[in-house]
């Protein structure tokens, strides 16, 4: 039911977007040098925050671009949206 402001297209209905899970997970540059535990940490472990959460969204039925959003999971308010590689303002 959200209205999401795609950084490329502007405000659009939530039905145009798909959710992509936690943001700012960096794929290890040298995975072979990681222990099983370290790799599992990257591969499986995700935060589940009540409050401001940084997450990935894809404007899948629009420009198809990925971007990040800072959403308060307690009331679903989106406080900022920003392009991949940029930093959140909040």
């Amino acid at each position, binding site marked *: 039911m959200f*209205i999401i402001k795609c950084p490329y297209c502007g405000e659009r209905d*939530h039905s145009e977007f798909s959710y992509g899970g936690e943001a700012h997970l960096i794929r290890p540059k*040298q995975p072979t040098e990681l222990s*099983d535990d370290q*790799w599992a940490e990257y591969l499986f472990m995700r935060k589940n925050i009540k409050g401001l959460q940084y997450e*990935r969204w*894809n404007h899948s039925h629009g420009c198809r671009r990925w971007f990040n959003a800072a959403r308060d999971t307690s009331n*679903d308010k989106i406080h900022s949206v920003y392009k*991949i*590689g940029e930093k959140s303002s909040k």
Partner: protein
Amino acid sequence: MTNEYRLSSGGQINRSESISFKFNGKTLYGYKGDTLASALLANGIHLVGRSFKYHRPRGILTSGVEEPNALVQIIKDKGKTDPNLRATQIEIYEGLNTTSQNSWPSVNFDLGSINNLFSPIIPAGFYYKTFMWPANLWENVYEYFIRKAAGLGKSPTKKDPDIYDHCYYHCEVLIVGAGPAGLVAAKTAINSGKKVLLVDERPNFGGNLNFSNKDYNKINQLAPLEWIKKTCLELQKNKNIKILSRTSVAAYHNYNYLIMIQNLTDHLPDKDKKEKIRQRLWKVRAKKVILATGSIERPMIFDCNDRPGIMLSSAVRKYANTYSVKCGNNISIFTNNDDAYETAITLHNKGVKVKSIIDIREKSDGTLPKKCNELGIKIHWKSAVIYTEGYKKINKIHVMRLSKDNTNVVGNKLKIDCDLLCVSGGYTPAVHLFTQSGGKLDYNEKKHYFFPKKNTLSQISVGSCNGTFGLKNIILEAQEKTREFLDIKETEQFNVLESEGGVFENIWLIPSSKISGKTKSFVDYQNDSTANDIKLALREGFKSIEHVKRYTTTGMATDQGKISNMHALGIISEITNTKLGELGTTTFRPPYSPITFGALVGRNVGQFFDITRKTPMHDWQEKNNAKFEDVGQWKRAWYYPSGNENMYDAVQRESKAARTKAGILDASTLGKIDIQGSDASEFLNRVYTNAWSKLAIGKCRYGLMLNEDGMVYDDGVTTRLSENHYIMTTTTGGAATVMGKLEDFLQTEWPELKVYLTSVTDHFATVSVCGPHSKKILEKVTQNIDYSDSNFPHMSFKNGLVDKIKCRVMRISFTGELSYEINVQANYGQSVWEKCMAAGKEYGITPYGTEAMHLLRAEKGFIIVGQETDGTVTPVDLQMDWIVSKKKYDFIGKRSLYRSDTMREDRKQYVGLLTNDPKEILEEGAQIVAEVKNKPPMDMIGHVTSSYYSPNLNKSIALAVVKNGKKLKGKKLYVPMPNKTIEVIVSDTIFLDKEGKRLNA
């Protein structure tokens, strides 16, 4: 017509338009403007239904959406019917045909009412406690009878013939409810120049003001009805506002997104319904929302408070004023507030006898009680109705004085004859939409109701839904809050006349002279939950209101507790000695009132239910008797039966022809992704398990794609068209998700790569021709291609022409036969297909479908992603180690292949299975065991993934995944089936042509 209970004048009905309708087979009459409830009451009918559990006779309680009792079924044509509709909301029309529900053989004589006698042994949780064991009786006995006994209306058996519609709407201000608060808010809002939408679920606006007594309520010197009419006219003239009646907000979601349902033709006679949209679902985005949803009157909870002829006081007033119907001739009123006195005065002025008013309060200084005193109506102060008599209709009430602290009744029992008891327990703000939108409530300890406290949306509540009562307060608040909310300067002055009210007092559960276990004080009328059920639940240890609700089913009926919730909470709070504010409420969930499936579905029915994708050759396949299977949204030719052939025979014939003569397959549905850019090779290196840098231009290579967890995700052949240009194929079902995944990695993980992806699945048609004669056919169909093995070997590609049309031909094979795929621009697909058919005629070319394709690839042991794999299978499990590059530093999923779990020896591994009896075909999905026991459980070590009878090998073959399968080759295993156990030998996965000679045949 005999509307015995119709008053001689007044009301908002059209007396010149008489309407006939049917109720339980009997033809009755009403007037245009009547609801089914008002028309039945005009005919003296109170008994309309039976309760859910005890089948007690039930009558009309209310006059609106909150009605728990008067649920009826509308009968249309045979098999077409609408169940569970509230008689209080159905507007009658010529030809309306309705029946009671939940009674058999009839509402007057209901066999199920025997449950009422057994009610002492059917307490809360009866079903949970009784039908626990033996477990196997559930399926055959208990469930059958419980389902038969439960349920209210009957669902239709035929397809819904009506048309439904969806509509999106954007506005700056949405006002929900057009009672006095909503109308004042609208009147104020239109001055802002903003785009306003005003909706109300009823056909007429004005809310409860519509039937208020004109002697005691005036706005700007106008009587209620006159003011409403004038205001509505003013609004209608304004261009900024859109007004929808018969439109109910079903859901209020976050970001001010609201779902509304509008009834367009339900109130019209059948002839006017034809070809018209029945209901419209509105999806509204509002910048600001003003809730003016009003309040709902509460009943009183006392012994036998559920008899027909016991009605809410405001409802009785509405029936008298709006529909000109007196609900009884000899009336008593039971109240805890002054509002019920307005009903008494209204009825008295209309010449209806009001015999007595029973008031739990010591006294009231309000205007209305004083007036009643003057009129000579007997008022029993500090008293309560403790019991009622009358089976199908109330005929007597028992009245006793309340003790000082209201916990007991004292003195003599007074019995009063009556044929109608009006009850009024005060008003509950309708906060449903407010809480749905995420709002938090607060509790008013003095006035005993929950009211809106906090919300993060751009939204306000005004009027009685905000806990503001009294006409003057409501109007002033609606105006002031709207002004502030919308930043409006100029305003109108309102001059409101209202009666002065006395204090309100509350008793959640009226005490009784009986011991408490012997009373039947109904809290939830529809679900037959009594105060005793709630007490029992608490005794049995249920504490949370959510648990008590589910155990007793209080508030879980179709009215969703609109009538019952507050009393249930009140009783729990009293018994547990918890403050109501701390107890909280149960969750109000959408929809506010029941809505039809038709409206939810809208136009997405039949062929519009889902997208159907058809290949360019679809018409040809249809003409040639193809049977189709759904693969994702695609319709794929499954097999082509010839004459009387069944599927098995057709597939055997097609499979044989593909290996002995020539076969032709439509492969257009495979996903195709065009990959271009200077880093395209590097990109493929990272997404596939094998190496791509050294693939020569003009060559094809099979690739396996993993998820980051190391499990097989997709596969397909990718062709290098030029230095920086590849075309990748994916599985039919995986096309969109693979494209999405690749885009994800490109945009977020590897933005440094210069690669562009374009989905071209729909742009190309693919005709695949295989078999020993395929080369000769291709030579006839295409030009400018030298098909010699030296020039055009297996796993390579050539550009060519089909007449003047450019084509790409790939020599790749999924069947193990010599095989070519012609790719042309999609709209030439059918023509190229037909050319191949014509050219192949002399060689016996045979079209084959997906089933034969599956069989042919199984003979070769080629996997199908999603059939041999299920998201838990690695390439090593598939014995495809050869495709996993050891040299590449990284690719998606590589690290996971070295996790301790993925390297386990005893993982399920890909094997072939051969049955002892070559005629025996295993069932796909069948479980495999190493050791057969007399009965389950047995250790299941794997399952059959593919199984066919091979016409080319003349024996059955199967593929499977089996624990430690690599080491079991030649071993005997078992497949237990319901009637036998099949012995199998583990074999290699390639059953035919291990050396791959046929590729060059």
